[in-house]
């Protein structure tokens, strides 16, 4: 196989749980209140070392969006999705941003220790108040 191009992020970063490839920086974290079928998800301004899949129209709790699934470039695991376009004005802020799902993500420092996040509930729930947070049916 060819040599995969990976970018290294400095300091602490969110990484792929399976292959530890760097995915996003804490500085780029926008919101912690996203959800997907498998659990919580975070919204980031930017993500690296991902490949973007095909665009599709998806109905989310917050309305119709054009999204593309994103995959870890090293192991190929699906790690979340990218918002390409939002059809409603109130959702426009998401355009160009990335969502990384909780269960496929670990937070690690350069020394390789995994820091568990403590503000998660283990229950999966769909937020029925669309104005406050975004429940995404992935």
């Amino acid at each position, binding site marked *: *196989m*060819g*040599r995969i*191009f990976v970018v290294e992020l400095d300091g602490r970063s969110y990484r792929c749980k399976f292959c530890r490839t760097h995915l996003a920086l804490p500085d780029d974290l926008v919101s912690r209140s996203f959800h997907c079928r498998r659990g919580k998800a975070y919204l980031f301004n930017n993500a690296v070392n991902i490949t973007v899949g095909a665009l599709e129209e998806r109905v989310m709790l917050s309305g119709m969006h054009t999204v593309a699934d994103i995959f870890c470039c090293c192991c190929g695991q699906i790690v979340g999705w990218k918002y390409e376009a939002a059809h409603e004005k109130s959702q426009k802020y998401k355009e160009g941003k990335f969502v990384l799902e909780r269960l496929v993500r670990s937070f690690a420092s350069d020394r390789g220790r995994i820091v568990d996040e403590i503000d998660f509930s283990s229950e999966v729930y769909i937020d029925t108040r669309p104005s406050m947070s975004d429940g995404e049916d992935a």
Partner: protein
Amino acid sequence: MGGVEDDEPASKRMKLSSEELRRLSNGSTIKEPVAGSSRDLMARPLQSEGGEEVVGSKGVIKKVEFVRIIAKALYSLGYIKSGAHLEEESGIPLHSSVVNVFMRQILEGNWDESVVTLRNIGLTDERTVKSASFLILEQKFFELLDEEKAMDALNTLRTEIAPLGVNDSRVRELSSYIVSPSYCSLTRSPKQDTVRARSRSKLLEELQKLLPATVMVPEGRLEHLVEQALVLQRDACMFHNSLDKEMSLYSDHQCGRDQIPSQALQVYETGVSLKHKLSGHQKPLSSVSWSPDDRQLLTCGAEEVVRLWDVSSGECLHVYEKTGLGMVSCGWSPDGKWIFSGLNDKSICMWELDGKELECWKGQRTLKISDLEITGDGKQIISICRETAILLLDREAKVERFIEEDQTITSFSLSRDSRFLLINLLNQEIHLWNIEGDPKLVSKYRGHKRTRFIIRSCFGGLEQAFIASGSEDSLVYIWHRGTGELIETLPGHSGAVNCVSWNPANPHMLASASDDRTIRIWGLNNLSTKRKEPCSNGIHYCNGVY
């Protein structure tokens, strides 16, 4: 010769437009004003009253100029009779009668008369007149010295040359020649007559360069224009890749596609022919670098050590390492005396071949995935120092320059003359930068595909006029460097093409390596091409050997 008599009044003498000079060239002089009506009577049928005659379909070639430079070319070729005949038949003299007189006087050595005639030519720029007079009188001076008439020479210098007020330092030089005439005689050849004659035509040449082109048509003007056209044609030729093709004047030069390698000549499945197995690295290789003399090979394990191998014996000659750190890239100095390596703490180190560390540049110099190149003069080290920036480090002057891009840089390649850098970006673009002085973006090349891997591109072809790249869609892409146009895509591989290397010695041969585990050698698409093995440093890069 004949021609229109110029009726310009004396007050208009100083203002010479091209129109007036054209009339001058037709054999008239300002000193002979004629009543206006005679102009019409003597008007030549070929010349329009107000405008100028043009030739050619685009209407930009002035007929008078065209005929004059042809006449000049005929004379240069030695066809004196043809030249004279052309002047007569066209009614367009090469030089006005004044200029002809002037030229004759120079060649005959009538210096004082020639200076007077010079003034009659009617040049507007007084400085030109003075400089020309200086040259003429300087010649007179030297010839007087040759004839050993030192007093006359001194007189000339004092009363004629010095008052011009031109080039005072030269005047002082000339005065020193009077004092030591032997200096002069050293530069002379024994035959006096031939020297003088030769140097008089040399003087005429110098004067030709000094005087405006409309007065005296410059030497070789037609040849120069034709050469310009040929060079432009050659530069516009997108497939120009062979020295053999001679350029003809009969038709515009245009190479065909057949000059670009497009046919797979050889496909290597398991390795060209296994010469040695170089074992020793514990980690996959991140880079490979041939020595300038092709006898040794440097290999770098990913965040491991750098090993030096002898190519003919397969023996590992040396291991370079730094405690606590891992190496990520390697390269040779162009004189083969030093090796460089990038380390995983972002520094770059330099060693002598025997392992003695010479220098270490700490700080943000290189990344874990980065190429490392040294320019041909051994002075600049080039590496990717940040996601979107390349560092050009002058190791002697300790000067840093940066190339800043908008997108993440994945790899780069240095041109053979070390003046240009080809940068591969994450967003599937290849950028060409000029790295002399302040780095400048020159061109962009697009079309190939890249989403996951490090795809390499390179310069190649005759005078590196082409850019080739691998691609994740299994094709080899070739662009014309100057225009940026994609001229070829080569199918054949069944996996992503990771890197390409154009044979530096043979512009018709290209090698590509792919995820389908083959190496393909591409050549010209005709049967008469001889198959040649690529020279040993034809394949520079290795994307990872597992």
